[in-house]
């Protein structure tokens, strides 16, 4: 490996790391990538460098190795360790490919889980904290019928781009509804009462005449319908006056 900064060999490690992460190649590295690509020897050297990095991430540990406990790893991930424990954990991560691998897996898994949980917590925040403190670009609320949403304009927080929030009137009860497309084949729907919630109201989601889920509507927590496949659903609010409407959950290409 060469230390001369004008030599493409000096950039092999950076190229290898960028390619391993499938990062876009930075413009400053692009000329070196082109040179490496044009030279069979350099291409072999880059491939070997990546192979070594890959082997490192899988290297076996000694049998007496003691890894971080599950809870410490989870606490590190959350940023909940104090400075001393955090430094100790980072020293461990520097030496333990298995712990790094598990941390990466936790990161990837939590991204999936947070994507699922976010709409519910958003609706909770909307309701519990009052609408005005949730700062969301107004364009995302284009389907909200309430003109008070103008209060939400002009700030930086964002909803997941594949989500929609709107108000739905059920007789005397106004509901705030949010739907999030988690993938092409799965959505979640969160429903919370906004301005009035009579006692003993029941929210029921049906499809083709069969009840998918039925939950009491309460004022303090949203009703969640998770993992819904695309299709036509009926949502009924049962109370002293029964209300019903249809909701279509469409796939992305529809």
């Amino acid at each position, binding site marked *: *490996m060469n230390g001369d900064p004008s030599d493409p060999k000096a950039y092999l*490690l950076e190229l290898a*790391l960028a390619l391993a*992460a499938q990062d876009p190649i930075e413009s400053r590295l692009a000329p070196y990538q082109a040179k490496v690509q044009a030279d069979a020897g350099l291409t072999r050297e*880059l491939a070997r460098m990546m192979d070594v990095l890959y082997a490192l991430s899988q290297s076996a540990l000694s049998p007496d190795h003691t890894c971080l406990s599950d809870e410490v790893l989870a606490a590190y991930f959350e940023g909940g360790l104090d400075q001393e424990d955090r430094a100790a954990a*980072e020293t461990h991560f520097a030496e333990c490919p298995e712990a790094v691998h598990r*941390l990466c897996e936790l990161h990837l*898994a939590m991204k999936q889980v947070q994507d699922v949980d976010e709409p519910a917590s958003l609706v909770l925040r909307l309701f519990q904290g009052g609408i005005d403190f949730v700062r969301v670009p107004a364009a995302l609320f284009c389907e909200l019928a309430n003109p008070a949403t103008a209060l939400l304009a002009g700030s930086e927080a964002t909803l997941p781009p594949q989500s929609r929030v709107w108000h739905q009137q059920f007789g005397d009860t106004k509901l705030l509804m949010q739907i999030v497309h988690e993938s092409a084949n799965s959505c979640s729907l969160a429903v919370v009462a906004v301005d009035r919630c009579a006692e003993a109201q029941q929210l029921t989601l049906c499809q083709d005449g069969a009840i998918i889920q039925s939950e009491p509507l309460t004022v303090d927590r949203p009703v969640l319908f998770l993992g819904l496949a695309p299709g036509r659903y009926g949502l009924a609010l049962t109370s002293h006056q029964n209300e019903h409407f249809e909701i279509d959950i469409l796939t992305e290409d529809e």
Partner: protein
Amino acid sequence: MPSIVDNDESALIHACIAQESGAWASFVRRYGRLIRVTAADLRSRNRAYSCDVDDLAAYVYERLLDDSCRRLRRWEGRSKFSTYLVHVTLNLCRDYIAKHGEERRVERWRELPDWLRASVPPACELDRQEQIEAMLRAIKSLSPRQAMVIRLRSEGRSLREISQIMHIPEGTAFSLSTRAIACLRTRLADHSFGEHK
């Protein structure tokens, strides 16, 4: 430091450990989806499609109940229970997938451009171990945080992801990475990674 543990959450876990009536049903209601999403995600990333998500989830529940809920008892409230549970679920699902002969980390070579993939050396070459040891020695000379960044990058994580994982600004991750690479470049200056010995 104020506790980050939700009282309800803590009470539920303690009720499960004490095997109180209805506690486990509440646990499944509350965390069932989390376990399934985590299991499904790991299954998909490991391409272990012969393992059914329901089987993975059932295995997780079974192991959580093992030894008087040993895994639940190990949670002391230093992290949120949900994060801890995701981590434990990942470990258990990985074990299950390994037992059923499906464990394979995703082959990153598959994602490489053609011009590079063709040059990937066979893993059995004699000088490979020597080069790995040289790289290990070089990484040991880095600071723990620099070494951690290099390890995360060799796991295929981008600088943005590293900044999220380590709770540092992206600029700091970039700086740690740049300094680590410069240091490794010097340390590895005498090693060729291209030719057979």
